[in-house]
């Protein structure tokens, strides 16, 4: 059976949301940071009473670098049966934010934004203006750097190794010299000569 999968693409997509296949999971909007606050206020008044989630993505090579992703749900804040709830509308608001740029908080519109904004600040370093208690939430308070950024090393910052007992520091292998005594440079030289001749 033939595969529906697209063939491997050349290189890597720098801005994947712009290339997305048509998936019907939400209404999608994109705003500039300047209009973010006004647009979210308008959406709240339009009935999007629930801020489901606020996350961020770091597109390292793109300008602006980060995407803030607001997931909203249009759910009336009153008692409702399954039929009355029906299929509430979902909306995804994307907002490109560059490094060092500050965005207004929406904590006063949705209290649930409190921890979500703290987490984005903690893991991406995006600062929310007007947040009452913007401090780290997942990482220790004296941590340096923002771990979910793409330029943050996967294994964490380089650290000095914990001291080991002296017998563990054996030095019977000299780094860079294989047992045959042939170094990498000599090997490459040999291959080069073989190709040329």
């Amino acid at each position, binding site marked *: *059976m033939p*595969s*529906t*999968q*697209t063939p*491997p*693409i050349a290189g*890597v*997509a*720098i801005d*994947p*949301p712009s*290339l*997305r*296949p048509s*998936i019907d*999971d*939400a209404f999608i909007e994109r705003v500039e940071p300047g209009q973010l606050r006004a647009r979210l206020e308008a959406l709240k008044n339009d009935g999007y*009473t*629930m801020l*489901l*989630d606020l*996350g*961020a*993505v*770091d597109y390292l090579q793109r300008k602006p670098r980060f995407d803030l*992703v607001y*997931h909203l749900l249009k*759910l009336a*804040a*009153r*008692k*409702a*049966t*399954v039929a*009355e*709830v*029906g*299929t*509430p509308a979902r909306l995804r608001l994307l907002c490109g934010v560059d490094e060092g740029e500050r965005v207004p908080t929406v904590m006063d519109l*949705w*209290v*649930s934004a*409190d*921890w979500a904004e703290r987490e984005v600040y*903690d893991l991406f370093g995006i*600062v929310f203006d007007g947040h009452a*208690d*913007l*401090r*780290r*939430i*997942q*990482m*220790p308070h*004296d941590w340096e750097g923002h*771990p*979910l950024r793409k330029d*943050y090393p*996967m294994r964490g910052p380089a650290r000095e190794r914990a001291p080991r007992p002296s017998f563990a520091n054996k030095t019977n292998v000299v780094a860079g010299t294989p047992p045959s005594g042939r170094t990498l440079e000599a090997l490459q030289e040999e291959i080069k000569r073989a190709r040329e001749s």
Partner: protein
Amino acid sequence: MTVYAKPLSPDIVSQTGNTMVLSMGPQHPSTHGVLQIMLEIEGENVVKAEPEIGYLHTGIEKTAEGLFWTQAQTVIERMDYLAPSSNALCYALGVEKLLGITDRIPERAQIIRVLSMELTRIASHCVWLGTHGIDLGALSIFFYTFDLRENILDLQESSGGARMHPNYLRVGGLNGDLPEGYLVNLDALIEKFPGRMRELRGLLQANPIFQDRTIDLGVLTPQEAISWGVTGPSLRASGIAYDVRRAFPYTGYENYDFDVPTRDEGDAYARFLVRLDEMEESMRIVEQARRRLETPGPVMIDDPKVALPPKETIALSMEALIHHFKLVSEGFRVPPGDVYQAIESPRGELGYYIVSNGENRPYRIRTRPPSLYNLQALKGIAPGNLIADLVVMIGSLDPVFGEVDR
């Protein structure tokens, strides 16, 4: 420019007027693991409560960015460790949407997915009920619920190979078909369940001490619940029948007949009743899924670019060997794009916002953890209550810290 984080508030005692700051946890036995709550108290009364989370932060989202799409599922299953299959299913559904293979998942795989989801929901509610009882001093119920949970874990072990993290639900279908003897054990569980449920209800539901401690405690009005982003049983206990299984059906839930239990009171007792009712509704779905399991069929998508070829073909077919080698050594690629997939986990709306840039590894997986938002509501409902009642409120919100901290 750098903004420096404020350090944690002093964690033992600081006098400010008549109130005192007290740190509860992170080693307190009733904080369900590793929750620390900074309390401002006046006598025994809570003036302000600020949960401090992050003690279980293991960087699962970051780790997943360095793994193949299939490998990432292994760490993702460890987020909500009481309902691992719900994480796996949500992730698999999201990746399937990006791959464009949602319509091609075999029927039998979808039935078994629903079955696993509902069994895992019952098992998760069993842990909640047992620990909630222990928080309140009702010790015996713990043994009844953990016995029931053990039956479900045995089923999980026989199908997936592991009790806690079976990794049974995969992108494209399932790891394998149900083993021989599974249905016999499942039938035994279905038969045992109603009697066990009667015992569980009999132990707590009409217990005057339990009622005294939970009724009218930690009331969430519909408006509060919505603005805190509360979902799942906690939201339905406030009267809003929002259930992702009904609102945005996935993996064939629209074909099952079940009710969405709701209560109007919004207090801890209502949340208790809603979860008990939910366990019975889940068993109804399990029974329906059980009846549909009679017809055999494939349980993995027939697409060599996603699914491993059958083992017996590898020695006979060159293509199968190549596909096997490519899938194991470099995984499959997912077309670039982003998707938000939500399911109804035992705790509420679990969502994954998945971004792919066309490589064989996920670019970013953002979780919408239901526990995080449910737990945050504690800030709203705790003030004005006694410290002892705080324990009841935490229990009634059912947070799982693997998911809150990730």
